[in-house]
């Protein structure tokens, strides 16, 4: 025993443990009631604030994702007209490199340069170092499973994906296979083999939080 037991009148016991604390220590019942009301107000306000802030964050992610794609239309039009690396807004660190269409699912997306967290908040991102979408080789695109690339779960083998390149040329792909891999399985990025599109997003689709080790990979071969 580390703590000595000190004999003490039973008066002191219980006071610290009871809930709500007995009235004895306080001056008047009025004061206590006001205190409880005040505490409830503060608690309610705090909960309201936290709730709004938390939902706001969630809404912000989706709003940003949707708004950015809308802004991209103009940048893409300028890209098709011959400009290079058109930034959709002046301080952007990325630019659209391709337009992705899935007619069957009515999906239209602008693929951005770079698959870093910053870029893919605004749209699916092309992984640097892999061929640009629509070019020969394995073009890899990463994106969020709960915003832009949520449609990946609905893809089936045979579904057509169309890629529009900055020069306006279009290339058609058909979904070949889908699978779940560990995030360390970087062979997915390899350039050997037929010309294809590799779409990567987080898995499982319904997970609440980001950061799991699994990725869902869809490979579509050029037709």
């Amino acid at each position: 025993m580390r703590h000595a037991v000190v004999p003490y009148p039973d008066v002191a016991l219980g006071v610290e443990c009871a809930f709500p604390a007995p009235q004895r220590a306080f001056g008047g019942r009025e004061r206590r009631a006001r205190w409880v009301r005040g505490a409830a107000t503060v608690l309610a306000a705090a909960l309201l604030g936290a709730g709004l802030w938390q939902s706001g964050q969630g809404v912000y992610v989706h709003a940003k994702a949707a708004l950015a794609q809308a802004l991209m239309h103009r940048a893409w039009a300028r890209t098709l007209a011959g400009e290079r690396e058109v930034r959709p807004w002046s301080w952007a660190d990325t630019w659209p490199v391709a337009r992705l269409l899935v007619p069957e699912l009515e999906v239209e997306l602008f693929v951005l340069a770079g698959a870093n967290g910053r870029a893919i908040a605004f749209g699916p991102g092309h992984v640097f170092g892999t061929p640009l979408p629509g070019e020969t080789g394995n073009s890899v695109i990463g994106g969020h499973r709960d915003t832009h690339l949520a449609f990946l779960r609905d893809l089936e083998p045979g579904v057509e994906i169309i890629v529009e390149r900055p020069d306006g040329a279009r290339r058609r792909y058909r979904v070949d296979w889908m699978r779940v891999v560990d995030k360390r399985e970087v062979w997915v990025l390899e350039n050997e083999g037929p010309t294809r599109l590799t779409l990567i997003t987080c898995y499982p689709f319904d997970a609440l939080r980001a950061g799991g080790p699994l990725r869902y990979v869809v490979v579509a071969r050029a037709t």
Partner: protein
Amino acid sequence: MLRMPGPSDARIATADRIAKAVLWVFTALAVVSTAGMLLFAAGGARASTLVPMKPQDAAGGTLLLKSNADGGTFAVPLLATDVEIRVAGLVARAVVRQRFRNPHPDWYEGIYVFPLPESAAVDHLRMRIGERLVEGEIREREAAKAAYERAKQSGQRATLLEQERPNIFTSSVANIGPGEEIEVELEYQQRLRYEQARYSLRFPMVVGPRYIPGTPDAALLGTGWAPGTDQVPDAARITPPVLRPGADVAPVNPVTLRVTLEAGVPLAAVESAFHPVQVRETSPSRREVVLEGGTYAARDFELAWTVAPDRAPRVAFFTERRGERHYALLMVMPPAGERIRASLPREVIFVIDTSGSMHGASILQAKEALELAVLRLGPRDRFNVIEFNSGASMLFTDARAATPETTAIATRWIRALRAQGGTEMAKAVGLALRGRERPDRVRQVIFLTDGAVGNEDALFRLIAERLGDSRLFTVGIGSAPNSHFMTKAAQAGRGTFTYIGKPEEVKQRMTELFAKLESPVLKNVRVEWPGGAQVESWPRPLPDLYLGEPVVVTAALARAEGEIVVSGMLGDAPWRAVVPVSAAPEGRGMGVLWARDKIAALMDSLRDNAPEPEIRAAVVDLALTHHLVTKYTSLIAVDRPPARPETVPLKSAALPTNLPDGWTYDAVFGELPQGATDARFDLLLGALLLAAALLAFGARRRLAA
């Protein structure tokens, strides 16, 4: 409990009840929300069963296919592996014997996918049937495959060895008779890994799950979505049995392994990291290592050893004569242990990427790494820091001495850096490499970036043009840095590439890098060969020699005479060593090493958009001369007399692969991009909080009443 009796006791009791009610409501809310979250998560799990597999299987790379791989049992030939490795100096030569045994009354074809060390140069294949031995020959891949198919159809015994990826091979053995045993013997050669005064040899015992037959390896993608996808390349009818984790199957493929270690110099310590071994000392520089019995192929074998420390770099040199040419392996060994006393003062230019793509964890890691680096500088060192996003700016107008004042200024400056804007790397490269060269200083440029740039090739050219005597080192930050840029930029800058994947790794990786950078053992390493232009050597250009690293050069020479002069700056003093060629001990396999280096360089050039037909022709030519298995060439052995009567059918079976103990993943650097946000969680939590707020307001109103 003591209570003071009073008139308002009833009111207190009411308040008490209300407070209790509020407490109950919150408890209930907490329970409900927890249950809700669990349901939510369970819903997710339910949804994931829509695909016919469990995520834990997926981590192993199992296919999401409509294949019926589980249906039916497979009669499979058995396999045992014997490995014999001989180590001489920096080179290991291994003989791997795979014994395919067919316990069944049918004729079988066995197919086995297996790993070899990444740098392995496979140059021999032998097939042994009873007493007979058939030597394999090297052919172009398609020709070898066609020959194998012909032999298979006509009932001849045949073995085909193909390279799937630089470290993954497939051996196929056709026509193993009932109760028969066929032994496939292959030989490979590799250079050992040497770092931090420690040599290591690795033998991968098992193909990681990602490599099981059925993984749609990029090279096999041709078969596509068809049921054929989950099959080994050349056996369209077989579905390979895979030992699933948790499956109640005894491990297959027992392995015996023996290593003969001849270090050339007295050995200090020999140890095996993961397996019990017996080590026998036959001389101060020689050891016999035997893997203890009963080991199954479930974990990679690693043997590491250290040699007695020495002070000055030593030069080791071996030659091998093959036909008209002489092949040589030259090795410059740095002294181990003690720090070089007279190391040169350095001028270190740090370049940090503060573009928008670095936002978040990456910039924090980069800043932490940079601060550590600045604080490590010595008083004789000079430094400067450059940041770049849409533009580039420098901390000081010119490099300054690293005094406590300047480092304090730098630290404050670094802490204030924010990631935003574009990635105009060329400006930063220009600023970093514009410094004039000073012979009394080592100039090092350290580049911290995620390499998220599109104009890589222009940057490589810029680096190569401006480099002068500076050295450029890349430090890759973040979970998915552009590996291609990092490695190639470091190569163009004659430096090294360090990858920091996780925040916890920052300190260790940076400390390792700086320990290395602080002691350049040899600068401006040059090798002058006798006979001048008649020499073709790899790698090009030669990197500096840092503490803990040897420089290894392979070369093809027209004549083996004269002297080789190896020179460089050791600290601030010129250093030079002369190696008489004729005195070189005769080694084995130097030609193979040289060819492997050249093939690797050729394959590398493919990434720089070299024309594939030309590269292919060059690689095939080298591979045929040196008997090497490459992406374009395979080894094939065919036993002439037919063994299987034409009327008896041949069945095929791929050999099951053990799953590794745990997951010994040989840190391929980099990961796949992450693709998820916390939005869903935020929304759910937000909704719960708002509901709680409503309840709290209600409770407050009741309290007030």
